[in-house]
């Protein structure tokens, strides 16, 4: 009978390369950290979160639209394409996208528990999507 493949996570192997003894101790005693290391870790997590929320052309994330329509809905894809093809071309458009990315994760958390607010958001987004679709018929085509 064939042996099952040994599972390895990239982060674990990276930590192991850094210090093998620490990796073994982490597994045996748990990930003990000094106060300084814990603070550095928290700072790193916050920086990661900022980095993760930064938009870029071709970025597939669209928080509010994803929450309202779903990640792979045609409306979400249309809004992504509008962001990439129109808004990200100009400095002000990029700034607006940046503001949107700063506010939208919070906005999504705030509106998700309220179906009535979600319906209003959907109605607003429907109108935006309709205007974009009317102005740019090619935007409705899916991403290749």
């Amino acid at each position, binding site marked *: 009978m064939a042996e099952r493949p040994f*599972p390895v996570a*990239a982060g674990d*192997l990276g930590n192991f*390369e*850094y210090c*093998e003894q620490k*990796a073994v101790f982490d597994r045996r005693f748990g990930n003990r950290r000094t106060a300084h290391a814990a603070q550095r870790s928290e700072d790193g997590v916050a920086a990661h979160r900022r980095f993760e929320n*930064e938009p870029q052309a*071709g970025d597939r994330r669209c928080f509010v639209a994803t929450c309202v329509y779903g990640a792979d809905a045609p409306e979400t894809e249309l809004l992504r394409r509008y962001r990439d093809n129109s808004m990200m071309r100009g400095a002000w458009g990029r700034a607006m996208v940046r503001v949107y990315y700063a*506010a939208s994760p919070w906005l999504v958390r705030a509106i998700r528990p309220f179906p009535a607010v979600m319906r209003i958001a959907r109605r607003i987004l429907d109108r935006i999507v309709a205007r974009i679709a009317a102005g740019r018929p090619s935007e409705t085509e899916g991403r290749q």
Partner: protein
Amino acid sequence: MMLRLLSFLVFAPMHLAIWLLGGCFRALRWLFTQRSWLADELRRATVWSSETTHDGRFRDFHLYAKPDRVYQLVDGRLCVTEFKTREQFRAYRSDIVQISVGAAALAARGFAVAPYGYVIVENAEDGTRQCIRVDLLHDDALELALNRYKGVMGGSLSPRRAYNRKCAQCGHRDTCTPAGAC
């Protein structure tokens, strides 16, 4: 229900205003700094995935990776990047190994992957960034690293110790460090 709605109507605009102000500030800063640090080919690339777990079979191992960003280059190949906050702009072997595992997991799923990746280092003090290109491990070198990991974690090989200045910040230093070693 009414109370929740009322509190939402009162606090939501206030929170939103604060977020938007912060967003405006960050937007202006971003306008002047964003992308100047990004490698040329990544500027032309598109973000293919972000903080997404990829897995795949590599020889006797099943690899799991959650790269910070995977870019799709203009030529269609995927390029794995990792984001790090550090005091110095440099990449370590541990970064290369981590990115190599991500690339191997993607390659195992049949994607064309670039033989290099990037470590995006953010200075912990001033927030400036640099994008450092690194060559990935060859398959045989990656397999060696994986076999050693398996041996050490399984107890058949003895672990090596790092003995560097980071030992002073390690939570296991009392258990690990022999008297006077660091």
